[in-house]
């Protein structure tokens, strides 16, 4: 419908294309600038002009004591994100399948999910840290931090799971049942492989939302910082391009994770397309 009878695109196409292009520039422009500025020369500052090109600010990140504990917080964040991602996948697959039936209490759990999604993060963090304090426990990123992040990754994962399951054709399962497959066989050999691309999407959300989480983690991480908390501390006391260098590094990690997830989804879809075509 985007072409008129004469085959020409309507003027609205060009206006909207312009809006879209400006939006993409708005999204990526400033980010690109800090990636460039992170290679600022040793004499350079927080903005242009570039005074030479160097990797000095990246070296500064790994030198202990120069800009906080970047290396340690990076390791903690990667581990935390990996664990959060695995847990989010397992729990959301299970819950997504469970929600396909009506059961007493379904409404309550669903409202819990929605409430957890819209609740200001700091509220959750404050509640967890106060709760730990009242029970005489120390907050720690491995327990309270992970729990706080799950209240953010699980609702997102479940919504993605709902979207994926909504498009799932149940007649595949019924066919498997008619052929004598047990419930476990049906799940493992029919349902999960079909849902796999969506499951990778859930894993992607679990990882990136945890890796970048700030508002819920700030009060629950305990004495050791995660990477976003370390970056937050840097914004107040580091005024060198090292701040941009950490941005470049963490964005590269994100891009690698996103690329791996989207790439494997595309691969699965292509293989499927080929299989369907060859049958």
């Amino acid at each position, binding site marked *: 419908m985007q072409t008129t009878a004469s085959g020409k695109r309507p003027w*609205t196409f060009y206006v909207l294309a312009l809006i879209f292009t400006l939006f993409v520039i708005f*999204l990526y422009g400033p980010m690109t600038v800090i990636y460039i500025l992170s290679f600022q020369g040793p004499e350079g500052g927080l903005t242009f002009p570039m005074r030479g090109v160097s990797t000095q600010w990246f070296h500064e990140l790994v030198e202990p004591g120069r800009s906080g504990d970047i290396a340690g917080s990076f390791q903690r964040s990667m581990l935390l994100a990996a664990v959060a991602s695995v847990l989010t996948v397992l729990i959301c697959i299970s819950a997504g399948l469970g929600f396909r039936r009506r059961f007493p209490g379904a409404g309550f759990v669903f409202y819990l999910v929605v409430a957890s999604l*819209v609740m200001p993060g*700091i509220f959750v963090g404050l509640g967890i840290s106060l709760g730990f304090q009242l029970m005489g426990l120390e907050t720690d990123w491995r327990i309270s931090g992970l729990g706080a992040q799950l209240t953010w990754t699980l609702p997102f994962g479940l919504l993605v799971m709902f979207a994926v399951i909504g498009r799932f054709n149940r007649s595949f399962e019924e066919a498997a049942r008619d052929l004598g497959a047990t419930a476990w066989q049906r799940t493992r050999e029919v349902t999960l492989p079909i849902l796999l691309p969506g499951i990778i999407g859930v894993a992607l959300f679990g990882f990136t939302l945890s890796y970048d989480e700030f508002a819920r983690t700030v009060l629950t991480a305990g004495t050791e910082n995660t990477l976003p908390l370390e*970056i937050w501390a840097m914004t107040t006391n580091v005024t060198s391009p090292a701040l941009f260098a950490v*941005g470049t590094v*963490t964005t590269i990690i994100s891009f690698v994770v996103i690329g791996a997830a989207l790439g494997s989804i595309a691969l699965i879809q292509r293989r499927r397309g080929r299989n369907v075509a060859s049958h």
Partner: protein
Amino acid sequence: MKLSPALISWLQVGPLALILIVFFGLPVLVVVAASFFDYDHMTVIPTFILDNYQDLFSSDVTLRLYLSSLKFAAIVWVITLLIGFFVSYFLVFHIDSLLIKIGLFLLCSVPFWTSNIIRMISWIPFLGRNGIFNQMLQDAHITSQPLEFLLFSDFAVVVAYVHLFTLFMVVPIFNSMARIDTRLIEAAKDAGASRFAIMREIVLPLSKSGIALGTIFVVTQVMGDFFVVKVMSGGQSASVVSALSNQIQQLEYPPAAASAVILVIVVVLMVAAILRIVDVRKELAS
């Protein structure tokens, strides 16, 4: 032995429910309880007092903070709604190839999966006094000296919010627009409707649930934010949560808890109002 279907569902949903009850439900109750507690310099004293709420309601600061947060929420809502609507409209109705459509959609979504703090910081070299934007304006002889209001101002706060949260608007609106039956639009066109009439009479009403979902996301994110306001306003503006986080830093937990409770009531009322206007369950159920 055969398990009943309801029991199987509960076993499947159980882990999710358990984690959300332990790390979300109970902490919310703790905050509500703590909002009635007393405190001194070191500890929280479990008791029942209403002082925290009385202090909150008797201070003009509270009203100012809410007005400031609501002002940001309103401005950001309008901007993200316009961008979200037109970007989705372009992707859904003007791009024919599914592959290009998915590609452009991903192009918009990728930043969402990267760090919010870094994306916010990336505006600093852009908007600063000697930043790129000011240099561009001066090079083009539009201004003769750097504009001071760009960074560390309400303007910078709004720019950062729009940058961070527009995607929350694009995704749900895109979803509901993509589900509109194109035959409806063909029929309207055959009946002589103009482009604008189609947009107003068909596309807009049918994307209402997406708009409502996006609105809920954007408004709750802005109302719950504190780090954008803190960094981008350079400490000149405040929001409800930035004030709250200051109280937490000073270990004044009970007043912070009372302020958090009121904030959540306000946010819940706003969400409820949106849900009353638009029924979004259609959107979630399908």
